């Protein structure tokens, strides 16, 4: 089973990387991009029997390790099929 964890800086926290990306996109002529926020993305391959169990493990992992609650929040998606989630784009 696969869990996907998205970690982003809280909205109130300044994001130097996102800001840099936004500036670079503006320089490249993409003025329609108003804002960019950069975060982290984790794909966990898990040995779990149910999606619920997978979510529980991923949540604990995020709470303890993957996210820093002072500045970050996270979101979890469970992919029971286990197919590679990203990388399918191209």
């Amino acid at each position, binding site marked *: 089973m696969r869990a996907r964890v998205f970690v982003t800086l809280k909205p109130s926290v300044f994001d130097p*990387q996102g800001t*840099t*990306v936004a*500036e*670079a996109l503006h*320089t490249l002529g993409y003025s329609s991009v108003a804002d960019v926020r950069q975060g982290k993305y984790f794909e966990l391959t898990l040995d779990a029997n149910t999606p619920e169990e997978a979510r529980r493990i991923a949540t604990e992992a995020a709470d303890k390790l993957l996210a820093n609650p002072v500045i970050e929040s996270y979101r979890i998606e469970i992919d029971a099929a286990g197919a590679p989630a990203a990388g399918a784009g191209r």
Partner: protein
Amino acid sequence: MTPDPLLLQQHGLTRGEYQRILEMLGREPTLTELGIFSVMWSEHCSYKSSRVHLRKLPTTGRRVLQGPGENAGAVDIGDGLAAVFKIESHNHPSFIEPYQGAATGVGGIIRDIFTMGARPIALLNSLRFGSLDDPHVRRTFAGVVAGIAGYGNSIGIPTVGGEIGFDESYTGNPLVNVFCLGIARADEIVKASASGEGNPVYYVGARTGRDGIHGATMASAEFDDKSAEKRPAVQVGDPFMEKLLLEACLEVMKTGALVGIQDMGAAGLTCSTCEMGARGGAGVAIDVSLVPQRETGMTPYEIMLSESQERMLLVVTRGREQEVERVFEKWDLHAVRIGEVTTDNRLRVQHHGEVVADIPTAALTDEAPLYERPMAEPAYLADARQLSMQSLGRPGRPQEIFGRLLASPAIASKQWVYRQYDHMVRTNTLVVPGMGAGVVRVKGTQRALALSVDGNGRFVYLDPFLGAQLAVAEAARNVACVGGQPIGATNCLNFGNPERPEIMWQFARTVEGISAACRALDIPITGGNVSLYNETDGRAVLPTPVLGVVGLIEEASRIVRRAFTSQGDAIVLLGTGAAELGGSEYLKVVHGLVRGVPPALDLAREAALQRLLVAAISRAVIRSAHDCADGGFAVALAECCFGTGLGAAVDLPPVEADAGFGPIAALFGESASRVIVSVEPQRTADLLALAADEGVPAGVIGTVGGERVRMRVAGSGAIDEPLADAERIWSQAIGRYFEPQRAIA
């Protein structure tokens, strides 16, 4: 039998080479064996085109503890210590993926140093790119710098110097050469050889994946459509793993249970096994199914050829395995026994008990093909060496040229670059980047080491023999300018396709030039690296030898830097200028030309100049020293002022040149063997006397102080500019190309 031509081509082997394989084995090679021969007989591993020439280099000397042939060279620096150093290129990987290519280049050279039993204490790099006006070049440049920083910083080895050059010929082929220096006890240098029948062979470090398996060796019946997706050529560096390996290996060496060690660099497991066997006059038998693997279903072929990073091969004394295993466990590394040393001088590879390769190690090393490739003087030379002053039009205004040169990326401050490098970690750095040759102290002694890497592709393009000598002279002079006595050198030779006779000619003349200069200056070459096939669409890079020179400073407290220190000091020019604008930065920036003949070099006079510098600095006669290189005297003088708040006023002796170019030549010509020093007025006579003893021309040309940089030539005003203005141009030029910030982590 006739081999499949496609298979041979994919393995980069000629028919003749294949024939030799048949003779050596007495049978047809297996696919794994073909792969092994292919990488070991590649230019990169066998030096088949260059070896006959490299033999000419002087490699011995009273301080040399280890010349070429091991992972790195070593020289005696006193106090029972050795300086272990080498330079390595990672050009091609850095073009494909700048960050990872440069990062893994740093990782590779660091492994070469610590496998010798030395603790790495300093890094330098020499970089070449196309024009920064090209957005793609900017990305490559930023990526390479970030990659060097990313790896070196996190492993905790300071980057204390380097150099960067620009020329269109490097657009599709940047050069990334990395130099590393370490310190070992002279009597504890570790060799990369396997010996002692039955001694176990261990694998430690990152698991093996399909990364780095050479594109040319990829296709075969076993590979499918998805090969491209499965086998990226790009290796990803893991500096954290390397840091663990570094500490653990140095600790293992202290146990005395180690027989030999080598890192798995180019050609990975193949190269490390057969080279260790060949050096130790032994054989090595391994079972690749025991190799820790990152991916499933890897074939023996893939395991043997993988270039996954951060892996080491060790031979351990039988019976002392546990001591070694325990150290690795401490560092959370798992050392795996994959085979043993044999007496039959063969590399024998098994896979789940089945023999998949069985080759005499000598066939892969000493008996690999050697070529004396044809050489021919390049056709471009006759014309390119012509430079007529008349054709340049009326000489421009020196002040305006001065500004343009200060803004030229080759000359401008590299702070944008070295600010990203941790240059202070380990608390040894006495001279930081931007202040001359890098200087690191040797803790526990009074001594320090001065390090410089230099090379000028334009000079070598216009005259390989002379250009190479100038590179040696410049690197050694930079080291002497901080007070270092040059005691050893390494070199990285970056050239185009050796199968073209003109390239081979450039190469051979370059090696002769390095040899001549190293002999005259008494600097042995203890190792190096050759990088050939640096070309895109049949256009080669400028022939670019990079020299890395190590200098010994007996009294670390006596060093000087490039910067002026005191208002009112006398400015003395050592050496003399001539009408030498050939190959200069001035010609390139102002006229867009790479032409003429490079500045002349009198090696005896250069040696005298360097002796003078070392003597004057060790006796505390001078307070600063800086050599005149790119941009000539004018740029060098300005650099002496930058960062100090001290201006300068000088009057230069005249230089005779055609068409009214005298002042231009005096200010911007790049005549060799010239150094600007500052000296307390009362000590001027001492300096001039020392100079006279050595036969070095020397004259007081001006004074330190004021808020302007003022230069006259033979009494008439040429440049008069507020120091702050000049400094602003110089310090902001490179950063300007990157505004707003485009570096994406």
